[in-house]
């Protein structure tokens, strides 16, 4: 008897908590928020890699040439992530295009 009563009460409480989002409906401006969170995590990871490479260089594990190559590659990847993050912020396409051009120029320099 105690069991049945408890089950009913618990089911009711749980239903209250669990069904609320279904009633409230879809709130999907969270989609961009989620993408931002994923990008932020990737960005942190990339920053750590750049720092690790610097430390390795300081400790003599990487030669200057190797470090330069790895560093510019990591920075390029980080820039991609930052660009996508800025894109989420809804900056104008023109500003993005301007940055693209500058990046390509920079990219040419480091490749040359």
């Amino acid at each position, binding site marked *: *008897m*105690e*069991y*049945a*009563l*408890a*089950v009913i009460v*618990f*089911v009711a*409480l*749980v239903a209250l*908590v*669990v*069904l*609320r*989002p*279904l009633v*409230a*409906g*879809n*709130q*999907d401006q*969270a*989609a961009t*928020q*989620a*993408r931002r*969170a*994923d990008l932020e*995590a*990737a*960005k*942190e*990871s990339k*920053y*750590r*890699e*750049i*720092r*690790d490479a610097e*430390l*390795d260089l*300081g*400790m*003599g*594990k*990487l*030669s200057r040439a*190797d470090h330069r190559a*790895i560093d510019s590659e990591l*920075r390029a990847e*980080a*820039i991609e992530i*930052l*660009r996508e993050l800025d894109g989420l912020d809804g900056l104008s396409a023109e500003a993005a295009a301007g*940055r693209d051009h*500058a*990046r390509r*120029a*920079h990219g040419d320099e480091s490749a040359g």
Partner: protein
Amino acid sequence: MSGIGAACLFVGLLCAAYAAISGVYGGLSGRRQFVVSARRAFYCLAALLIGATAILQAAFLRSDFGYRLVAEGSSTDTPTFYKVTAMWATQEGSLLLWALLLSIFSSAVLFLTRDSLRAITPYATAVLAVVAGFFLLLTVVWVSPFDQLVQPPVEGSGLNPLLRHPAMMIHPPMLYTGYVGFAIPFAFAVGALVTRSVGADWIRATRRFALIAWTFLAAGIMLGALWSYTELGWGGYWAWDPVENASLMPWLTGTAFLHSIMVQEKRGMLKAWNVSLICMTFILSLMGTFLVRSGILESIHAFGASTIGTQFLIFIAIVVLGSVALVVWRLPDLRSTARLDSLLSREAFFLLNNLVLLALALVIFWGTFFPLISEAVTGTEASVGPPWFERLVTPLALVLVALTAVGPMVAWRRVTPAGLRKVLVIPVAVAAVTAGALLLGSDAGSSLTAVAMFCLVAFVLAVVTQELWRGASARRVMTGEAWPRALSSLIGRNRRRYGGYAAHAGLAVLMLGVAGSSAFAEQQDLRLAVGDSFRSGGWEITYDRPIARVGDDRAGTGAPISFGAQLTARRGDEFRTLRPSRNYYPAAGMEEGAIGRYFEGEATSEVDVRWGLGGDLWTAVRPDISSLRGSIEEADRKFAESDGDVRGLIITAIAEQYRRSPPPASFRAISSPLVSWIWIGGGILVLGALLAAWPAPQARMRRARSLYRARLGRDLTGA
């Protein structure tokens, strides 16, 4: 209250079922609100299971023997600490603990990822819900912790005396935290495979959970070994018993996983390895949980067929088949874009690391399940013993320790032989000097394996020291800080790296202890009369006098009678007193006699150890109470109906008889060199791992972020 507890479990099962269905539906349809709903169902599940656990613990604490579990595992005279921990000494209680930990961890991870990993979280939620649901199903349908007895006994059976040791009580929750912790990355891996988002996102989100799970599993294994060493009468810490092996295997594959994911994060390689490793780790965790309860392997832990063995087997089979199917199905997506540049690269060494750890796990798996394998192959059941395990595991362990030293020295992508030589020259020199010193200056050369391990340990420690020194130097060059500050900020700013190095050092120190104690331990079993002495490992040990204590429960284990011996150990100027003894717990019924039952119940060996960094002196005694048999039987006849006080007097008199004319007792003395370093090394390992898992303070992260953004911003604008 038990009805409420059972209701918590039943409604919890409904929550899990709902979370699974809602999660999958939310994932398939893209309707976010169902995923949110599933997450909330997990929060409810956690709350319900906390409630159920509280109700059960309350029953234990007030010794409510209407509960079958309390009647079987506790008694009014069980010390409070052991009343609280008795819950997970039972099958039902430990299943509840598993489900509780899983619901809490799942709630935590789902809360932390509520705004990220949108594609994966719905399916991860569903997977976690299914696992939680399985454990709850077991407790709801088959083995409920809230079973009531129709006729509650007046007194409970009490906790098995062998378990009345603090380490043994913390050991299960630690192991379970490990096992359950690995369910989190497993669930996200499944989600990643299902949704084909097999980048490093799922790894980044669950890495800390995996690391913490691994740490707790390591601590749990160490505690089990420590308990074996200090509580059991054989003086060893590892017997290659199936249940010990079952906890070690997921730890090994978990270690491989933790290292291998670094390769995926940095270079997008070893994706297939990573999903496979985490699936293996989780499956082995389930097996570890299951093996203790099944009857499939002859082990001291397994007692005939358990009631839930088949269900576990079916569930494990489903998980195995599902994982294999998923990985094979998504194999095209798991191909890496990058290629291995050189064998002298960290990627290659991590791959080698994976292979060595996998080989270790495979060897242990083969040996553990050999009875079943041989039965299937030859028709007769045969088993392999510790010597076989040691023979195969030792070379692999040596390679592993060597890898922990060389791995961090090798850079990503490629390191030139000259570059490698430059970083290794000092550590190799240290190792060589160690070898020379050991072979020439001591008789350690009797075991070449031990010498090899000692050299490798020196190698690892030299490497770690060198890394700290060079790193601090590099920092000083950059910032001009003083040495102590440079060192602390180096470690503080690179916790993952230096925490990892500390863990490596801990492992090396642990292996130092293992090698020393395995190769050079001296064990003696003898029968001594009072006044006899013997030698062990440089000690001269004398049996001074017998000990007989009644009602003096110093260790808090609830033992009324304790017989033992006082030994004096002398080595040079050092002088130690050791008091090993044997605790006697009364038997439950009256068949053994009113007085006899105090001597015929369970008995445990209380060892006494003289701990030392150079080596331990371990002693245990088995008193011979057969000479007291006559007096006990006479007392049984005369005082069958007496009350407690009279019984106490009789027993004290019998104890006095033992003290006055003690027959020779059986002793075991072991002098184990370096064995304490096992526990020290284990502690360093755990602390290193915790350091690596420690999140950096938010303020510093923001500063670092803005710094980088500024620098990269300059790159962006081409300045």
